[in-house]
């Protein structure tokens, strides 16, 4: 029995809501209970977007994640805002291309990956989110290509099947990254 609470946060346009949705779908394909809740409001345009995702073996109560087990910060304002909220023993994933600083907390683990730079080098500048997600799943011991592909198929429509391969490659890139 376990429950993992994720908080994904970044600039609007970085695909934060999408990776959150993919994480939820991955849980769903594994018969877990899941919820996904976006922040919504005027701050979304050009500002910070975030979403709460819960993946659990038991029914999800509140879908609001105030204290995440896993924080995914794709920009500095997200790290500044949510670093203190992570539960002790939790993990923070940070896109080190955009976040220069380390964390101040000593009771949580920081995983840095230059996802935006890697995405750019890979010729897929819009897929930093997927590179990051690959790394997250790898670190959590959940990078199972078949399951990831099953979840991706739920999120990417059949008409854009060509995107499946590209996204999978980006995730693999993230999963293989070692600092």
């Amino acid at each position, binding site marked *: 029995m376990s429950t993992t609470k994720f908080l994904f946060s970044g600039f609007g346009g970085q695909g934060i809501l999408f990776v959150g*949705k993919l994480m*939820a*779908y991955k849980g*769903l394909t594994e018969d877990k*209970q*899941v*919820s*996904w*809740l*976006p922040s*919504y*409001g*005027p701050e979304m345009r050009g500002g910070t977007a975030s979403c709460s995702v819960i993946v659990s073996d038991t029914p*999800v*109560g*509140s*879908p*609001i994640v*105030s204290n995440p087990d896993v924080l995914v910060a794709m920009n500095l304002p997200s790290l500044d805002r949510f670093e203190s909220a992570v539960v002790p023993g939790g993990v923070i994933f940070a896109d080190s291309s955009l976040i220069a600083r380390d964390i101040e907390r000593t009771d949580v683990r920081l995983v840095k990956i230059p996802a935006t730079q890697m995405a750019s080098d890979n010729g897929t500048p819009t897929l930093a989110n997927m590179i990051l997600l690959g790394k997250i799943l790898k670190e959590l011991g959940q990078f199972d290509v078949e399951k990831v592909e099953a979840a991706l198929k*739920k999120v990417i429509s059949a008409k854009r099947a060509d995107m499946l391969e590209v996204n999978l490659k980006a995730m693999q890139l993230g999963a293989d990254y070692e600092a």
Partner: protein
Amino acid sequence: MADKVLMKGNEAIAEAAIRAGCRHYFGYPITPQTEIAAYMAKRMPKIGGVFLQAESEIAAINMVYGVAAAGLRVMTSSSSPGISLKSEGLSYLAGADLPSLVVNVQRGGPGLGGIQPSQSDYFQATKGGGHGDFRMIVLAPSSVQEMAELTVKGFALADTYRMTAMILADGTMGQMMEPVALDDLPVTPMPEKPWAVTGTGMKRPHNVVNSLFLSPEKLEETNFERYDRYRVIEEKETMYEEYRMEDAEICIAAFGIAARVSKNAIDEARAMGIKVGMIRPITLWPFPKAPFRRAAEQVKEVISVELSMGQMIEDVRLATECRVPVTLCNRVGGMIPSPEQVLDAILKAAKNGGKEA
């Protein structure tokens, strides 16, 4: 197990409405429910239905009146300030005994308020939908699955009792995604509507749909008849869920998102050995009085957890006949009580032993 998809609550309402046979949607955009209109705009033209973005909320509710009078399943949706605009139409629908489904995905108020979640339209939905003596059946979903199920149920209830059924959700329920199974929704076929204005074909007298009765005797009669129907609804259609109430000494009263938050707090308190449970009204009108009456004999305090300044708490006090203290745990203006805040309220109740602080 039916195949589950991830859907926003707003989308689940729209898809469920279509599956319930609704082919007419009229609305005007407003956050946080616009996904309903967007979904309808995409789907209705493909299935021979009508999506119409009206010039205003008032126009939309009057279009609902027109289609309802013609005997078809019809809906509109809005959020708090938009529902206020529709209240004239809601009263006319009641006066003409027309079935309709109206969705309110609540946001903070009063006035233009904000766009974050709220439950502060409880009074408006359950007691004051418009002028005159009338009720709406008010359904309060607490999950995306229930957003779909209660939409289907709402159309059936509206048809059965010839009145408006309202889905009273909030911004969180509308915006969140959860797995939802749509294949087994309890869709009921639409009943015969011999009163509908569909053309006489020169074979029967004219049907008249109207809410104007200048004779007070006649108007009184329509009111009495309507309230006879309401009594049947109170007897037959009340819905609620009890959670861990068997041996509870403290009872939480909460619906919608507040019930979700409360569940976390209850589980935590139970782990600490505190006997606490919850009664979650699913119909806000008719209000589930019976379980609260029972709870009044069993618990030492009821805590009403609400995203309002305390609206449902009045119905809880009426139902418990003030035999136990009923206290309020709330946030407003778009804020949501945290599980910790609810847990604090539970701990306080456990310590005070039912004596109001």
